[in-house]
Structures are given as structure tokens and as C-alpha cells.
């Protein structure tokens, strides 16, 4: 009940903006071929529900696979980079380079490499979402308290043991922050990949655009946002379950 009540402030702007958009379109203040009335977006959603849900499922799968790949690879790369300062100097600039690559520009390249379809979409989601995982995991691992490192050394803990029992759990809050950012980026990457790789919600948006179906574009965009929110919520749930006992970010 408390939770429900705390959600009310966030609902007010939604209701107001939706109502305003509906009225603005109905009274001709805004042309419906530019911004569709919320009611027609809803209608488009219901009419094309089979197509949209299928597309949502396809996009979700690609985004999720891309996100999981960047989680696993990102953490592994960060662990590798943390192993020595020299390795960091040699490879970290390339990780930064990955982040600055404009995905729109390289998506056509991904099609050439991986062909049309899911592999390109997954690769696109992966490329855009891996950097925050690397950066946050690395900074988390490197900022372990010196006194705790001394403690582990005093009792003869090996490097892998120290990594597993000290550095990794200590970095967990930061790793989860990285995953939160990565989850949103993975959805963006998947949609961009679909514009070019041709499937899922990205493809629906692209096709509806050429047919001047703004209502359908909006419906697909809305579903893509819901997907992003769901992934974000999933990470928050994981974060709550793992951190609630010991980290202040998850304590009331």
C-alpha cells in the first residue's frame, strides 16, 4: 500500500501529458500524422498485437543475450585488466575506444560480418553495453581497501582467493551499477541492430515509418521502453537480493 502511494506522484505527469496529447490531437492543435493520439496508439497496439508481441519477444531475446554476453565478458575483461598496471595501460584505452564507437555507424559493418538476423542484433547490443560493465567492475576491483588486502596477505591468501573472497564481493555494488547502465544500452543496441539487421521492434518501427503509421511507431517504441524498464527492474531485484543485508544503497 505504501509502495502504491509512493508511485502516485510519478503517475500524475503521465496522466496529465497523455490527456493533454489526446485533447491536442482531437482539437487539431497537433497534426495526427506527426503525433498520434494516445487512443490511436492503443488501438494500433491492439490491432497489431500478434505482430508486436512477436517482435517484442524477438527483441527481448536479442537484448537479453547481448546483455548477458557483455556481463560475462565485461567482468572477465575487468578481472584481466585488474591483474597488473602494465596490462591496464596496454588494454584499457581500447576498452574506452569501444565505448566511443558510434553504433549507428558500425551496424552496417556488423551485418556484413554476421549477416541479417539475430546474430547482428546481439552483436550490436553487446558492443554498446559492454563498456560500463568493464569500467565499473574494474574501478570496483581496484578500490578494495588496503587494510583488507593486508589482512588477506597476512593469512597467506592467494591472488585468486583474494579476488573471489574479497575484491569481487567488495566490487559488487559497483558492478551492479554498471549492469544497470548496460541494461538500458543493450536495448538501444538491439533496436539499432534491428533497424539494419531487420527483425523485432526495430524493424517494426522502420517499416511503420515508411508506411506513415506514426501510431504503430509509437506503439513499438513504447514496447521497447517497457523492455528497457523490465531489464532495469530485474537488475534492481538482483541488487536488492544480494546487497540488502550489507550495503547502504539497499537499506532503508
Amino acid at each position, binding site marked *: 500500500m505504501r509502495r502504491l502511494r509512493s508511485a502516485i506522484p510519478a503517475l500524475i505527469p503521465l496522466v496529465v501529458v497523455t490527456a493533454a496529447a489526446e485533447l491536442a490531437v482531437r482539437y487539431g492543435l497537433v497534426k495526427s500524422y506527426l503525433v498520434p493520439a494516445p487512443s490511436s496508439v492503443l488501438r494500433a497496439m491492439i490491432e497489431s498485437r500478434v505482430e508486436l508481441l512477436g517482435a517484442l519477444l524477438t527483441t527481448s531475446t536479442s537484448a537479453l543475450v547481448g546483455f548477458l554476453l557483455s556481463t560475462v565478458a565485461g567482468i572477465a575483461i575487468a578481472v584481466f585488466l585488474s591483474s597488473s598496471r602494465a596490462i591496464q595501460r596496454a588494454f584499457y584505452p581500447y576498452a574506452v575506444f569501444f565505448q566511443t564507437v558510434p553504433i549507428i555507424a558500425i551496424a552496417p559493418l556488423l551485418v556484413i560480418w554476421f549477416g541479417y538476423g539475430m546474430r547482428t542484433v546481439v552483436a550490436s547490443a553487446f558492443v554498446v553495453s559492454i563498456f560500463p560493465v568493464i569500467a565499473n567492475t574494474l574501478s570496483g576491483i581496484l578500490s578494495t581497501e588496503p587494510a583488507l588486502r593486508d589482512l588477506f596477505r*597476512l593469512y597467506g591468501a592467494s591472488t585468486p582467493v583474494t579476488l573471489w573472497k574479497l575484491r569481487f564481493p567488495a566490487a559488487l555494488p559497483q558492478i551492479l551499477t554498471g549492469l544497470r547502465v548496460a541494461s538500458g544500452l543493450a536495448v538501444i543496441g538491439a533496436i539499432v541492430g534491428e533497424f539494419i539487421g531487420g527483425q523485432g521492434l526495430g524493424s517494426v518501427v522502420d517499416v511503420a515509418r515508411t508506411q506513415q503509421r506514426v501510431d504503430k511507431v509509437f506503439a513499438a517504441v513504447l514496447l521497447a521502453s517497457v523492455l528497457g524498464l523490465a531489464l532495469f527492474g530485474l537488475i534492481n531485484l538482483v541488487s536488492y537480493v544480494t546487497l540488502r*543485508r550489507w*550495503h547502504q544503497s539497499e537499506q532503508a
Partner: protein
Amino acid sequence: MRKAFDQLVVIEGMDLEIAAGEFVAILGPSGCGKSTLLRMIARLAEPTVGHISIQPEERFQTAFVFQDAHLLPWRTVLDNAALPLELMGVAREARYSAARAALEQVSLFEAEDRYPAQLSGGMKMRVSLARALVTQPRLLLLDEPFAALDEITRFRLDTQLRELWQTRGITVIFVTHSISEATFLANRAVVLQKRGGGIKLDRRLDLPVDRNDELRVDPRLAREMRALLSAMEEE
């Protein structure tokens, strides 16, 4: 012995011998190398010139208590206290029973399933002490362990530490900047010179073996404190 970090000489020409079973307090201004000395004794750092030798039987039985409790926040009290044994590869049952015994020694009861975030500062420090005691160390090194605690909690932990030393016959080296704490706890006080120096004063404290809060207002304690204070003041 000498210790320098690049150009910065922290300790110069120090020669100090501590016998097994002693309770030594090390005092000195900030930056005089107290903590560095302790880390070198624990073999967490090496002297630049010279060496530190420790009786072989004590070498692998050293425990260290840090300025803050430094517990692992994702572990329960029991798992924190058992950590050293876990790292040394002791079996689960054995390390839990040793950890429970160590927690009992610092009078922490019925808190073993709690997480550090749920503990007061004094309780955290107790867990930290229990973690140090769990390996049955022969040499206990403490680096201003109670500095952040309120005075009453600190007095209580001082008394407990002193009792532990008496009953266990271990060697304790206690670094502090509090003259009263050093005097109350130790049998011997070593005052270090400011940065880049050695030992300024090495004094046996003429105080009774059994110590309780009465001693804190005893003139004999005041006399010893005055001696340490004047050594620390003259520069």
C-alpha cells in the same frame, strides 16, 4: 634499521628488541612511522636497510588489528571471525568452533548471525579483535585500534585486552597516540621521534600487573604519563 619511501625517510637508525610475552606500547607524533613499523613487523612491508627478525615460532602466528574494524560487510559476525582460518584452509567445523570461542573471549554473545551494518562501533571492534584472536596468535599487533570509539567503550576494551594478554601470555605491540591509553595498557612504552628518527624514549612502566579502572585515576599512572608526555613534548 631504516625505512624510506622513495626520498622520504620515515624511520632511521632504529634498534628495538621486544621479548616474548611483553606488552609494549609504541607512541609518537603522526607520521613518525608507528604504523609502518607495525606493518614491517607483520611482514607486510620490508625495511629499506637492515632487518626485522622474529622468533620462528611467532612468525606464522601473527595477528593484526587495524585502526578501523575493517570487517567484510557481506559476511556475518561468525563468518568474519572465522575468515583467517578459512584463508588458512581450516575445515568448516573447526573454524566455526574456534570463531565462537574467540567471540566469547571478547564477550560477544548472540550476535554471530548479524551483519556488520547492524553493529555498533564497539561491537565491530570486538569482532575485529575476535578475528585476530581466532588463530591463537603468539604475537598480536594493534594499530590504534580503539581510536575511533567513545571513551567508555574504549576503557572497557582496554581492560579486556589487558586481561587477554594476562591469561594467554602472548606478545602485544600496541600503537597509539594516546598517552593515557599507552600507560594504562602496557608494561613498556617506546616513544618514537618525529619523522626520520629513531627511538626517543624506551621506558618500563612501574605499575601493578592487574589493572582496572581504579588505576586510571591513580597518581602512579599520572607519574608515568608525565614521563612519557615530557619525552613527547621536547623537540
